[in-house]
């Protein structure tokens, strides 16, 4: 019986994801093209080694690890929605918390892939996995990160699939299981980001990272970037499906982002004050980021762009009128996403490593191979997210369940508002 139900879920889901209009298929084709390009680039990298990247001994981590760090933040941000939704039973957000968790699952997939493509010997990945390998726990923070990221993935994956599956089977979900895991996922979201911050924070060799403000700042900026993506996703969802998401919920998220951005800017400012006022040798890295050192100015425009974007986003989200206007709201979300992407990605990794420990300045900028591999990983993440939404949304809408096959395609060139779903061709 159970197996039969599962088989039907499986077959039904397969049918849902293989049905869609031209926009849906175009989107999938676009993602698959990026994935293919990434796979080819990665094959080159496997063949020739990491020499096809711009990384070298002085800057031994680059674009891959920068993206990894940013995406850990996105994954952690699911908690922003989960906390008010479950703890305070704040209605409007509760119905959309599940999308935050889907986003977390997709983001973790990307994180793990970014670490995987960065290592020199992917064939030895299993060396990390006891009992076959050796995990240097608790000494190595990377071992901690491997553990918490995978655990966080599993917890979110179980919650989401259980909720979706129960929706399909039209039965009540297991409250004890879901509540336990949701309560667990909140401290875990904080912990994945804290551990990732500690990964850098613990290195005395790199004074730019060796500041205890790093972990709090990581959390603050994560609570900006993750919800920024969700703001777009939620608007797309309600535009292209009949899923009801109230304005109130979206404004609430934007308001929370304003507070997080304030904290982020404040913590950042505190660090900058300390560096400039004390004016020690350690200032060099901050100066490299904002001013350039010894004729090397590669990061300067990005650093200032991040500052401008972050401040602009804060202003747009703290003023109720611009927060509630969807043009300025979307501008603010885009500014947040870009600003934090710069600040938490290359803006964190590169000044940490430059100048290197013996004072050498190597100007890193990613090669096309790195960009293609990274684009491929983002495409895989979006693909996972799209397919999961494609199944989850009609179930949440009650259109796809054990007794009902997903509704058939609307007629071509459908005149109804919800007939042209790009990312989330959900209920159609």
């Amino acid at each position, binding site marked *: 019986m159970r197996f039969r139900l599962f088989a039907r879920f499986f077959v039904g889901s397969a049918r849902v994801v293989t049905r869609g209009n031209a926009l849906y298929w175009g989107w999938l084709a676009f993602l698959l093209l990026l994935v293919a390009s990434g796979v080819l680039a990665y094959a080159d990298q496997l063949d*020739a080694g990491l020499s096809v990247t711009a990384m070298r001994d002085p800057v031994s981590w680059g674009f891959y690890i920068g993206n990894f760090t940013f995406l850990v933040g996105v994954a952690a941000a699911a908690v922003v929605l989960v906390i008010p939704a479950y703890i305070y039973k704040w209605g409007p957000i509760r119905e959309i918390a599940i999308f935050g968790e889907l986003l977390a699952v997709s983001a973790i997939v990307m994180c793990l892939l970014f670490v995987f493509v960065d290592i020199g010997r992917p064939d030895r990945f299993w060396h990390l996995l006891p009992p076959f390998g050796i995990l*240097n726990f608790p000494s190595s923070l990377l071992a901690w990160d491997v553990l918490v990221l995978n655990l966080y993935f599993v917890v979110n994956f179980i919650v989401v699939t259980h909720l979706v599956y129960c929706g399909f089977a039209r039965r009540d979900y297991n409250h004890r299981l879901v509540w336990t895991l949701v309560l667990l996922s909140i401290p875990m979201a904080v912990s994945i980001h804290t551990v990732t911050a500690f990964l850098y924070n613990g290195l005395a060799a790199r004074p730019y990272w060796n500041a205890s403000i790093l972990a709090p700042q990581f959390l603050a900026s994560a609570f900006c970037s993750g919800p920024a993506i969700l703001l777009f996703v939620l608007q797309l969802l309600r535009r292209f499906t009949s899923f009801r998401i109230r304005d109130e919920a979206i404004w609430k998220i934007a308001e929370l982002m304003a507070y997080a951005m304030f904290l982020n800017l404040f913590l950042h400012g505190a660090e900058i004050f300390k560096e400039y006022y004390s004016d020690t040798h350690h200032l*060099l890295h901050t100066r490299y980021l904002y001013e350039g050192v010894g004729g090397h100015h590669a990061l300067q425009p990005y650093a200032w762009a991040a500052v401008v974007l972050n401040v602009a986003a804060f202003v747009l989200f703290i003023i109720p009128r611009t927060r509630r206007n969807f043009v300025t709201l979307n501008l603010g979300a885009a500014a947040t996403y870009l600003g934090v992407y710069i600040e938490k990605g290359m803006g964190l990794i590169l000044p940490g490593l430059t100048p290197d420990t013996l004072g050498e300045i190597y100007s890193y900028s990613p090669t096309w191979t790195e960009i293609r591999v990274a684009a491929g990983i983002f495409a895989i993440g979006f693909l996972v997210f799209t397919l999961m939404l494609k199944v989850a949304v009609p179930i949440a809408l009650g259109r796809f369940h054990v007794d009902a096959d997903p509704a058939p395609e609307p007629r071509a060139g459908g005149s109804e508002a919800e007939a042209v779903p790009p990312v989330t061709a959900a209920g159609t």
Partner: protein
Amino acid sequence: MCGDPTDRRSFLRQVAGAAAGGVAAGLLPSCVGERLRDLPRDEARRRLARLEAETRARFGREVTLSAQEAQPGVVFGYALDLSRCIGCRRCVYACVEENNQSREPQIHWIKVLAMDKRRGIDLVHADAYYNPPAVPEDGRFYVPVQCQQCDNAPCTKVCPVRATWQEPDGIVVVDYDWCIGCRYCMAACPYGARHFNWSEPGLRAAELNPALHYLGNRPRPMGVVEKCTFCIQRTRQGRYPACVEACPVGARKFGNLLDPGSEVRYVIEHKRVLILKEELNTMPKFFYFYGT
């Protein structure tokens, strides 16, 4: 330092062996990868012989591959006389030849930094790529930097798979067959002492030094980290590291820190000694001093 996992692992092997029965227990070591140090003696010997044969076949030359262990009562230490060093970089290239570093692309385990005498030791203004017609240059002095063989090593602490550790004689080594190439150790090292094989190391058969050590100068694969080992293949046989022998001005001193009569102990006890980045508490076994 991390705890020695040998006991835990041999216990795991027993458990797995017992569970899987006699046949599986016999097969297990060959299908579960391990660091050489985790293997029972006879098995380690077999793996070493296999690696030796592979290296011989690859380079078409006679080679010896040793895994000679640390001698009891020995902890190696190094002292470098900053007042003598003339910045000729002979140590750099002697090291490359002895330790089979990649020639194309070039990997150097020693980096010599030219510094301005007026500034003193100041890494921010150091120049690693000085290229005058003759050394030493007026107004400059030279600070060669290589692995400082820290007692409180940040690099071994961060390795996620324990592919790098400190040996009983104080040498920090890498098992090139266990390293996954994550480069966390490179981020952690305050001395830029760790180097990564970004591409397949370029080493011709004619350039190969055939006296190899498993944890030292054996040819490395692509995608792993390598570093100075105080020439483990030489020093464990009572010889000097190649850089000590190559130095034309006798600026480099090497010996057993536990031997009160050793030259390196004399230097520490009688000269003005300094430690690079002392504030980081890495406790190097590499000491800089002013001999004159």
